[in-house]
């Protein structure tokens, strides 16, 4: 595929968008795992939720 | 070892707070400072710690380390706890251990001090989660994290419940029985062993 004299700018643009969005997605997944693990660790230690949804005030 | 103050005169601004006070605290003893608010307990403790220069008089620690000032041989606990809320309980204690004391057996010392004040199960929690009394205990745990011969405590039982106060008293008793000395400003009778009381109000009347 020939993208002309300015191919580098096109590739950098697409690369930057890919890297940023992939990074965000990976961060979201890792963060989700961490929160779930923390929650599970606390519940395993016997800390129980008092109400149905104390998470949101 | 003996902490001696002779003919101490301390001014704050234009006001004379302490006028001609002399006392001595021997190793193994605790001196309890009493008197109403504003009588000068905090000022006296901050002077002993070296923050305030007395107008006249001498403060010295006989038998201490001559290369160090009295402040550098003292634990100073004021009204604030010197606790950082974004560090965990263990990190707070660990920092003061490395900063104040370069001795060995740090981990066991930190663990012992947290255990003494009942915080061992909370060591991984950020200090932000602690209640006022728990933060106070973490501040007091600093006393046990590093070894220092002189303890200068200003209202150490503030925001502590009975059980916690008992732990503090036990810590002070251990300290004095192993040859340390302590000066403590407080309103409450603490039940300390080997303690004498210095009533600053009576002292002022006499002067």
């Amino acid at each position, binding site marked *: 595929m020939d993208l002309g004299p300015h191919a580098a*700018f096109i590739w950098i643009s697409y690369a930057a968008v890919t890297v940023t969005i992939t990074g965000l*997605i990976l961060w979201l997944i890792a*963060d989700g795992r961490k*929160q779930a693990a923390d929650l599970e660790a606390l*519940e395993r230690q016997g800390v129980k939720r*008092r109400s*149905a949804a104390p*998470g949101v005030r | 070892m003996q902490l001696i103050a002779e003919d101490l005169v301390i001014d704050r601004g234009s006001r004379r707070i302490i006028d001609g006070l002399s006392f001595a605290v021997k190793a193994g003893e605790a001196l309890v400072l009493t008197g109403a608010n504003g009588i000068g307990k905090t000022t006296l403790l901050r002077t002993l710690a070296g923050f305030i220069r007395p107008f006249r008089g001498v403060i010295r620690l006989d038998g201490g380390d001559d290369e160090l000032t009295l402040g550098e041989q003292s634990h100073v606990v004021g009204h604030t706890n010197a606790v950082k809320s974004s560090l965990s309980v263990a990190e707070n204690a660990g920092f003061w251990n490395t900063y104040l004391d370069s001795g060995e057996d740090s981990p066991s010392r930190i663990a012992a001090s947290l255990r003494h004040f009942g*915080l061992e199960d909370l060591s991984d929690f950020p200090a932000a989660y602690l*209640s006022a009394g728990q933060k106070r205990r973490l501040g007091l745990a600093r006393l046990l994290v590093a070894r220092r011969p002189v303890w200068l405590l200003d209202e150490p039982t503030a925001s502590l419940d009975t059980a916690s106060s008992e732990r503090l008293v036990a810590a002070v008793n251990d300290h004095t029985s192993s040859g340390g000395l302590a000066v403590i400003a407080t309103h409450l009778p603490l039940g300390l062993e080997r303690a004498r009381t210095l009533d600053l109000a009576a002292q002022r009347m006499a002067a």
Partner: protein
Amino acid sequence: MQTLTQRLANPARFMELSARLLPWISGAAGILLVSGLYLAFFASPADYQQGETVRIMYIHVPCAWLSMMVYGLIALSSFGLLVFRHPLADVSAKAAAPLGAAFTFLALLTGSLWGKPMWGTYWVWDARLTSVLILFFLYLGLMALRSALEDESAAAKLTAILALVGVTILPIIKFSVDWWNTLHQPSTDFTSTVDPSMRLPLLVMAVAFTLLFFAMHLKAMRNEILRRRVKALRTQAVAGRDRLAAQAANHGAAE
């Protein structure tokens, strides 16, 4: 009959529903993204003026669209928090802010990379770029304010107020920047007309990015709800695991 927002008001139900929805939205976003990329690179012509660089448009425009849409979503959530006290409104606003900032940043970055071959410099103070830059600042302000406040419920309300102020002033900012720009130079408007052959790939990419955002937003909201549960449990645990307090309680019971 309950409306959708009312049914979603319960975080537990939201967690359940979002867990079922998330794979479908992510899948749809993925499929659309792949087909959009195919259309953008293989099934659309180069521009007669800009040549191949016009292909940057297929990611630039969706990012620019999202930068505005997400701010609108934050404003809407803030409104929901302040007026209806909807329990998930703040979770939505908090989760959307960094995502919106990221897409705004990407709009600026791709715009600047698109501009270099055309203008000979990475950045010109064009009215459109300047407005997006100011939008980026509004996002930064929202996130900075939230991170500076420790009390979470106060932080929620205060950032909501800031978001609503921002959305009110945004048109004025846009207007004044346009005016400032025409004072100094003729507008360098380069995306006014889009050739029909480019319209389809652009549309597909825009829908794909929007779905992608919603998938990420749902995931971020789920994370935030979990984070708040962890926090609530920790606070509870600190009280429960205090050895001295436990001792005192036992004493009290024994006496």
